[in-house]
């Protein structure tokens, strides 16, 4: 609203612009007063108990160990926090990937023409979605750790390459170099994939023959990675039981395993519904038009239906990913040292409660905001251009 040339300026208490500012300020003042009252109480209660209200506790020694790591007791608390958020990501990222794969399979399965597949998929979704996650996690934890998996002395070694015991689960893992190098090799492989795919697509445009860009690109990726593997001296170690430990390979903490399984199973049921809903939301006229153009089933799915379904699915999928990350906090009840558990233990060891939790919350919110931004970027990429 700009300069309206009116002959009379309205009195202040009736001026639309003045009133809106007064209202906003009043609301702000009330909220600020409430927050200040909370803070005042906090100061008062804290002063009488002698607990500090700053972040200095981050420099104190942690006084606890994190299993599965070389984290020593004497490292400062801030390192524990870092370890905690890393553990959160260590379970969330594979969780998101696996849950998406499983969820998509089940979601598509619900639309399958095979009756058995449809029923099984529906049963999965209807059962898992309606059970509280904590119940599921408790089940998984008990199942994995206490009842199904034997003690280390009688460890179960299926096919000679896995070790399953209550001390952890050993799977074959790489050795001979750092993980970063391996990731670098992988990145080069992805580059190779992209290059080969581009070349093949260009060739296909010229000649009209199918490009097989996907297959040849994947092949290029494998070649690069294999070459890098051998050239840089990587090897695979298999785990063996040595006394009460597991030698070689990598040991997966049972609580990590349980948490991962529970998160994947639970989140996949939600993702299945999202996938199913988004495929069904694509107007059937699209598929019909594609059929009229004599496209095969796979072509219709890949070029017409799925791209439109993705558009619809991205925001709710992003939401589920966020939920998975937040649900990883439940691992704290089962001995997995993700961020919440670290916070809880360090408060138990004497760190001041409110700053410790505030910091943890800030980190969760930060991860949340970051993921939201990524989802928004993905969303914008898939957006339909409209008038």
């Amino acid at each position, binding site marked *: 609203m700009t300069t309206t040339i009116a002959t009379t300026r309205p009195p202040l208490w009736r*001026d639309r612009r003045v009133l809106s500012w007064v209202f906003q300020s009043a609301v702000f003042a009330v909220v600020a007063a409430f927050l200040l009252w909370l803070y005042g109480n906090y100061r008062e209660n804290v002063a009488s108990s002698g607990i500090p209200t700053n972040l200095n506790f981050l420099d104190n020694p942690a006084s606890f160990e994190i299993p599965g790591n070389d984290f020593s007791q004497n490292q400062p608390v801030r390192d524990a926090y870092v370890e905690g958020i890393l553990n959160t990501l260590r379970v969330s990222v594979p969780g998101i990937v696996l849950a998406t794969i499983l969820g998509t399979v089940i979601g598509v399965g619900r639309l399958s023409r095979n009756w058995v597949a449809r029923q099984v998929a529906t049963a999965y979704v209807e059962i898992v979605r309606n059970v509280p996650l904590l119940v599921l996690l408790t089940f998984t934890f008990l199942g994995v750790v206490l009842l199904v998996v034997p003690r280390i002395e009688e460890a179960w070694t299926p096919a000679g390459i896995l070790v399953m015991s209550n001390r952890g689960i050993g799977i074959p893992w790489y050795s001979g170099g750092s993980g970063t190098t391996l990731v670098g090799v992988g990145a080069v492989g992805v580059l190779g994939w992209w290059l080969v795919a581009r070349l093949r697509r260009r060739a296909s445009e010229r000649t009209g023959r199918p490009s097989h860009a996907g297959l040849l690109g994947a092949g290029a990726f494998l070649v690069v990675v294999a070459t890098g593997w051998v050239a840089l001296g990587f090897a695979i170690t298999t785990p063996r039981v040595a006394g009460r430990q597991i030698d070689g390979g990598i040991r997966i903490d049972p609580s990590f395993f349980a948490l991962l399984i529970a998160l994947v199973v639970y989140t996949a049921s939600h993702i299945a519904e999202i996938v199913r809903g988004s495929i069904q939301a694509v107007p059937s006229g699209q598929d019909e038009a594609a059929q009229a153009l004599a496209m095969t089933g796979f072509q219709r799915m890949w070029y017409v239906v799925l791209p439109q379904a993705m558009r619809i699915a991205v925001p709710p999928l992003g939401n589920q990913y966020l939920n998975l990350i937040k649900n990883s906090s439940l691992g704290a009840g089962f001995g997995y040292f993700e961020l919440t558990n670290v916070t809880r233990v360090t408060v138990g060891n004497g760190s001041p409660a409110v700053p410790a939790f505030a910091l943890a919350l800030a980190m969760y919110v930060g991860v949340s905001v970051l993921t939201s931004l990524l989802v928004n970027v993905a969303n914008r990429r898939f957006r339909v251009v409209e008038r």
Partner: protein
Amino acid sequence: MKGPADPIITLDHVDKWFGAFKALNDVSLAVAPQEVLVVIGPSGAGKSTMIRCINGLEPHDSGRIVVDGIELSEDIKNIQEVRRETGMVFQQFNLFPHLSVIDNVMLAPRLVRRIPKSEAERLAMGLLERVRIPEQARKYPGQLSGGQQQRVAIARSLAMHPKVMLFDEPTSALDPEMIGEVLDVMKDLARGGMTMIVVSHEMGFAREVADRVVFMAGGEIVEEGTPEHLFTNPRETRTRLFLNQIL
């Protein structure tokens, strides 16, 4: 059918911007009491914007707008008063779907003019009879046809006893067979002496009932005159081009 000389609505060099786009450019207009004004023009000409400025739905950026002696400004009292004196009928009817037809008509008189419920109900039924659908009183808007809904919308605006009725393309969203019933109600209103500003493409209506026709294009008033004059012998080229396209 012109009334006394003092105009009931005055627009004085009004400008309006939407961001960088100038929607109204130095628009000046005077409407006499009981006058029926029809505004025509191509889409995007600013016709809707102009009448939405008259009842304060859009704030104007410069110039003066005076309705029945009340000047539209940042004064909320003024804005409220102007809205009480003007009634607006929308292209999309905008009836409240969660209220019955009679509740739609009664709501504003009860809340704004604080009329007791029984009196408001009598008033509402009278208006529904006037627009010829009293039997639909207890139904919900979703159960009515487009033409019936628009007539309810007219009754709803009339319930506030406005001095001026503003119509923003009232028949553009209707199926052809229902346009007639709505135009009949509007003609009744005009003959009854209501001051009306109607944005419409219905030339037959304009020829029959309008006292004056205004042609707008590009945010400006290009030409105005009586229907006979404007339709048969327009002065401006732009007017002529537009009329050729639609007549």
